[in-house]
């Protein structure tokens, strides 16, 4: 037996999941299920779409309508799902490589269109599934199998990217802040438009090992100690923000939603008949 939440929202036969010991993805996946549970959505009204990667294994375990699609193309498929059935609550679960590298173009255009999709990025700063190659969110100077002497690329700030591209809800939380993930996913699902939640995860097996970050517990301690809430950040002196990153809700606005605008076009022709 297991908890009622897991029983009701996961495919028990597929558990335990294949993620490594201490991987933060399980915590974030559970928070998404809690968010859906607390909002009281019918399971048949929710569609979870993913691409390829560690994070993208999640829909295999979640008991909703699910789609496991091509690498980087989760948002393209999700756009199709949403256009075909605008009443569905579409959630995209993606990783940093899936969403920011191969799927980067889909991300900016889904943001630009403001289509009502909730995107949750499980950001573990590395390509875990394929063996620890550095990703667009691996911090400069950090190591990966393809950057054994340190990564010279500058890393993406995914929240700024989504905001700049036009997403109407942008937030960041971490695997340590599991309740914050839940609250942000709830707010994202309630937002009528493109919502982007970056959930910073931990990868003790590759990112942690390559960069001598210690075990899962020390990586969780790092998330705990190196985050500052965006609400508190303005009041803190600059030196206290050094080496830290911000969590919280960064941006929220109201813009015309894509499927609604499309429906207006259809309606305008139907009235003419």
């Amino acid at each position: 037996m297991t908890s009622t939440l897991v029983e009701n929202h996961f495919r028990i036969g597929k558990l335990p999941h294949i993620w490594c010991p201490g991987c933060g993805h399980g915590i974030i996946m559970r928070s998404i299920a809690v968010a859906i549970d607390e909002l009281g959505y019918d399971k048949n009204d929710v569609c979870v779409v993913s691409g390829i990667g560690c994070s993208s294994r999640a829909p295999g375990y979640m008991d909703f309508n699910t789609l496991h699609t091509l690498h980087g193309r989760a948002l393209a498929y999700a756009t199709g799902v949403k256009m075909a059935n605008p009443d569905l609550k579409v959630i995209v679960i993606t990783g940093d490589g899936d969403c920011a590298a191969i799927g980067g173009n889909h991300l900016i255009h889904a943001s630009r269109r403001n289509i009502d999709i909730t995107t949750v990025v499980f950001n573990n700063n590395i390509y875990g599934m394929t063996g620890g190659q550095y990703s667009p969110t691996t911090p400069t100077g950090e190591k990966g199998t393809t950057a054994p002497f340190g990564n010279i690329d500058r890393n993406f700030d995914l929240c700024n990217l989504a905001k700049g591209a036009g997403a109407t809800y942008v937030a960041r939380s971490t695997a340590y802040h599991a309740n914050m993930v839940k609250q942000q996913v709830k707010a994202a699902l309630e937002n009528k438009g493109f919502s982007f939640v970056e959930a910073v995860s931990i990868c003790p097996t590759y990112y942690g090992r390559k960069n001598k970050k210690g075990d899962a517990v020390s990586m969780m301690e790092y998330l705990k100690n190196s985050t500052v809430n965006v609400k508190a950040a303005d009041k803190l002196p600059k030196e206290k923000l050094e080496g830290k990153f911000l969590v919280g809700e960064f941006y929220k606005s109201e813009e015309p939603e894509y499927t609604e605008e499309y429906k207006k076009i259809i309606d305008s022709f139907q009235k003419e008949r």
Partner: protein
Amino acid sequence: MTASKEKKLYVKKDWCKGCNICVAFCPMNTLELKDGKINIKDIESCTQCGRCELLCPDYAIYLGGTEDGKK
């Protein structure tokens, strides 16, 4: 301040991967790893805050009802 006695702490050892997160973040030091798997060391100290359930990546520990057969 005692939490409701309606709930109990359960562990599902075959799902535990021994990552030690619940042990490290339990505020009451209730848990331990035994042979690489989660074990409740001292149930009396548990305040049922639910942090272990919240932070367990493998859903191997949870607060559940008191119905029989839930272990």
